[in-house]
């Protein structure tokens, strides 16, 4: 009941305020090189959370999209936090969100302003969660502000390296 007016307001604001709020958002994620006899690239989910940890929007999901019969979806649940906070309500593959797993190295996800039009200004957390076959799981949270340029960083310790969030005009 409460969310309906909010969405209407946000959509209305977005329509009216798009030119002024044409911010862009990018997330740089480092996937560490891990020495393992049976290394598989991690599944990774990136999403925006409110400070109370409720999910706002999933930005990216990297999984084995190329496996036959959608079999790669069997392990989406291993990104346990994302799965519970919204992943399980989504349909994969999803346009502009899902993609193939990435090799170790730095990867940047840039979100066009149009996709964040309904995001009200305020404090948020960028969450990056990685889960690896025969490996571990880790989620890194980066607090950032939507509504003006800023950058924020955090670093994982096992399955993720540096995560950098950049909000630019």
């Amino acid at each position, binding site marked *: 009941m409460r969310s309906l007016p909010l969405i209407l307001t946000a959509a209305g604001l977005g329509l009216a305020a798009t030119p002024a709020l044409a911010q862009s958002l990018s997330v740089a994620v480092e996937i560490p090189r891990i020495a393992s006899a049976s290394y598989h*690239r991690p599944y990774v989910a990136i999403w925006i959370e409110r400070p109370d940890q409720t999910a706002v929007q999933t930005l990216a999901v990297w999984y084995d999209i190329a496996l036959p019969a959608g079999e790669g979806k069997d392990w989406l649940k291993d990104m346990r936090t994302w799965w519970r906070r919204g992943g399980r309500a989504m349909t994969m593959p999803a346009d502009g969100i899902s993609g193939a797993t990435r090799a170790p190295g730095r990867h940047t996800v840039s979100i066009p302003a149009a996709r964040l039009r309904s995001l009200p200004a305020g404090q948020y957390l960028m969450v990056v969660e990685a889960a690896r076959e025969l490996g*571990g799981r880790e989620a890194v949270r980066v607090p950032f502000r939507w509504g003006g340029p800023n950058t924020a960083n955090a670093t994982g310790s*096992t399955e993720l390296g540096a995560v950098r969030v950049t909000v630019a005009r």
Partner: protein
Amino acid sequence: MKKRFALVALAAAALALPFAAQAHRAWLAPSSTVLSGAEAWVTFDAGMSNGVFIADHAAMRLDGLTITAPDGSALEAQNMMRGRYRSTFDLHLTQQGTYRIANLSSGISATYKLNGEDQRWRGSAAEFPAALPAGATEVVATRNANRIETYVTLGAPTDSVFTLKGEGIELVPVTHPNDLVAGEAATFKLTVDGQPAQGLTVTIARGGSRYRDNPEEMTMTTGADGAFSVTWPEAGMYWVNAQVRKPAQGTDVATSAQYNGSLEVLP
């Protein structure tokens, strides 16, 4: 663009290297390992999966199930059932001492070409190569010896079931495998075809990986006498794996041997 290509090439190399390691882990897990009384029952689960002892991938075929009682006699499993994700069976312990429960497989697997097409063959060492069709070319054969096993003890532990068979990888206790305690060190020796196995990589994984973020696996290497030691970080069911491959040499075909053991560590 160049950078992206380099990344792809690296990833392809990483994928190609550990081909043998792609296989799922095989485990044979007892419901208890340390029992008391005049007689007792133990039930076993056997399956293959990424997370050891988590039945979520495939049931194990138990064609090679071999159960040895403390007096050396062979016992039959009871209530055998093969489910979707695990096979189960029960064992009635009526003698005091240590039992060895092993699923053994050995034989030859081969690939060859017949009339330009790739073919596969699997069978016993005695049938090879006579069983291959006439005209088979480019025969590449591997002699396999796999042992998936565990041990349970009624009463005081005994050593009678650990006599060497001399085939594949075997575990020779220095510490008895049903006498393992968290925080204490244990030592075992591995043999390959009856000889001390130096330089084998041993992987040790604790069950319950679904309920923690870190797999907490250990790897170690056997010394000159084939021995490795481990200090158990905590109680639980542990999976111990070692494997060895030898390329073909002269008239000897390539060999591949694997050991998968389940060891229970008590608090």
